[in-house]
């Protein structure tokens, strides 16, 4: 298929609050190709969840305003669509898995009834499905995610299940429709290490089988490295680097990406890094020019004035940093 399934072009967004505007997103550029698994790395406060919420159009629209940009899904601008069209996309084309499966499931309804609703409204649109059919699809969905005894699980309430099982149910629910794009926001963060491993392997399996596109958002770099084809690094409301995943972790170029990767505790070497000096910027009054400049070891005068755009270092590796302006491909020590 030609083109990209999702293209976010120059998206800028702010929140209107007491004291002014929180200029959270500042020209986000982001593409996801068909059947591509894209990772999005960023720390808390970088704006990654806000971007995803904007895509799914579930931002609190009272305080959030989009000042410019487009979000193209299969070539059509989501921001210009009306409610009905967006609903259709949400039901059939894009699914989202959240960080905390406990919060994503309604504690007052059994698993079966929640799945039933999804089947009725997303899959069954247009055709009348009998009770038997709905139940059968529900059992099939749970079987797909390796839940033991799916039939009994349908009767359970979320509180009776473990965290790993809840996350698997959320995944099952996401895969109920014939989706084309899956957005996974920090999946597995609330799970134990061994369970997280299992759930992520399962997710990878399902994604590969169905050949869908995935956006995997996380601040856990290891998870992103193992699953994705291409990865973006996000800082303070815009993308600072994008590359093929393997390339990014072997040869990170942007000073922030390098700092971030060096800060993760390792099984080799000795001792912990000291962290990245400084703090993430304040969105009421963000730094001028490149938002990372106050914390950057390689800061130059132009960094404080003008925000860098993506510079191509390789065909599949771009960096938003003035150091790489003229096709330079590494930082001189």
């Amino acid at each position, binding site marked *: 298929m030609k083109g990209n399934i999702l293209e976010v072009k120059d998206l800028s967004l702010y929140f209107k*609050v*007491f004291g002014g505007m*929180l200029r*959270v997103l500042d020209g986000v550029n982001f593409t996801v190709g068909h059947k591509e698994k894209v990772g999005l790395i960023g720390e808390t*406060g970088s704006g990654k969840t*806000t971007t995803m919420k904007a895509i799914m159009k579930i931002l609190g629209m009272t305080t959030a305003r989009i000042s410019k940009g487009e979000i193209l899904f299969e070539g059509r601008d989501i921001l210009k669509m009306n409610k009905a069209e967006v609903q259709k996309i949400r039901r059939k084309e894009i699914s989202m898995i959240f960080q905390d499966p406990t919060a994503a499931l309604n504690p007052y309804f059994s698993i079966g009834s929640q799945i039933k609703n999804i089947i009725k409204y997303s899959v069954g649109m247009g055709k009348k499905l009998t009770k038997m059919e709905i139940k059968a699809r529900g059992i099939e969905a749970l079987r797909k995610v390796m839940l033991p005894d799916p039939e009994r699980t349908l009767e359970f309430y979320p509180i009776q299940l473990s965290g790993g099982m809840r996350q698997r149910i959320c995944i099952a629910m996401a895969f109920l429709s014939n989706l084309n794009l899956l957005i996974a926001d920090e999946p597995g963060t609330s799970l134990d290490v061994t369970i997280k491993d299992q759930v992520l392997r399962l997710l990878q399996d399902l994604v590969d089988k169905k050949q869908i596109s995935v956006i995997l958002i996380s601040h856990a770099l290891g998870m992103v490295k193992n699953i994705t084809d291409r990865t973006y690094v996000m800082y303070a409301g815009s993308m600072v680097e994008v590359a093929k995943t393997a390339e990014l972790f072997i040869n990170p170029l942007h000073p922030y990406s390098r700092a971030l990767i060096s800060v993760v505790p390792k099984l080799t070497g000795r001792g912990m890094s000291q962290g990245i000096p400084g703090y993430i910027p*304040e*969105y009421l009054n963000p730094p001028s020019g490149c938002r990372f400049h106050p914390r950057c070891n390689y800061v130059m005068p132009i960094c404080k004035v003008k925000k860098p755009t993506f510079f191509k270092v390789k065909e599949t590796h771009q960096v938003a940093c003035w150091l790489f302006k003229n096709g330079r491909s590494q930082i001189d020590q």
Partner: protein
Amino acid sequence: MKKTIFSQVLTSKKWENVQRSWYKFSRNRLSIIGLIVVFIIMFLAIFAPFITVHPESVSRYVNFSESKQPPSLSYPFGTDIYGRDIFTRTIYAFRISLLMSFVVLSISVPVGVTLGLIAGYFRNSWINILIMRITDIFLSIPALILALSICAILPRNLTTTMIAISFVWWTWYCRMVYGIVSSVRGEFFIQAVELIGAGKLHILFKEILPNCLSEIVTKWTLDIGSVILIGSSLSFVGLGAQPPTADLGSMIAAGAKYLPDLWWMSMFPSIALVMIVLGFNLLGDGIHDIFTVSEG
């Protein structure tokens, strides 16, 4: 714990805190209306002697030549059967209403909150059982009935009515604070302070109580209207402020007999009562908004 981008918006300046509170409050137009209504009422109540032209109407005064007059320029709300100016009496009645709510809440809130704190903190002790059983008993009887029964055994005047209502009212605060304390007590920050070795008094009043403040203040504001309403209900049946003191409830009761002919006797005090209660309710909503931490 998810930190949102919005924690950065906060600073430590006191004036800015006031400004921010105002910002949150003023987003809801109804709260502003409530604030205005309350201001007007308080202004009228305080400056009653300077605004009204017939101050004798609140005392033992009779003027049958002017009695049963419909609303006119000299008597904006008309006169009652004794010839007293209803407008003057209504304004003075505000004073009684506000006084009643002030006294009742000044007694019942501290008592209720303290008992709630103690009962909530010392969960497995006799004092908890004692306090909560008493609270349950009081709460199981409708407030009005309970107040009536207490008034029935005490001499009939405004003071005893206020005592009676306070007797009933503390239990709501006790129950509310008990609920909050029960959950706050298990929080890590309380455990941490206990582990450091802080004294019980400090923990109750300096660590736990501030976490209840938002609910207490909100309820307090909303209660002003409720107390006035209960007070007026009691005076409607003859308790509370005794004649000739002007009081909304007794004025409504007195005028009820003469409906629909002397409609102004009941109508204006009733509207006034509605305005007070509504005003404080809307204000209470706005105050609740100030304490609500909204998601960005």
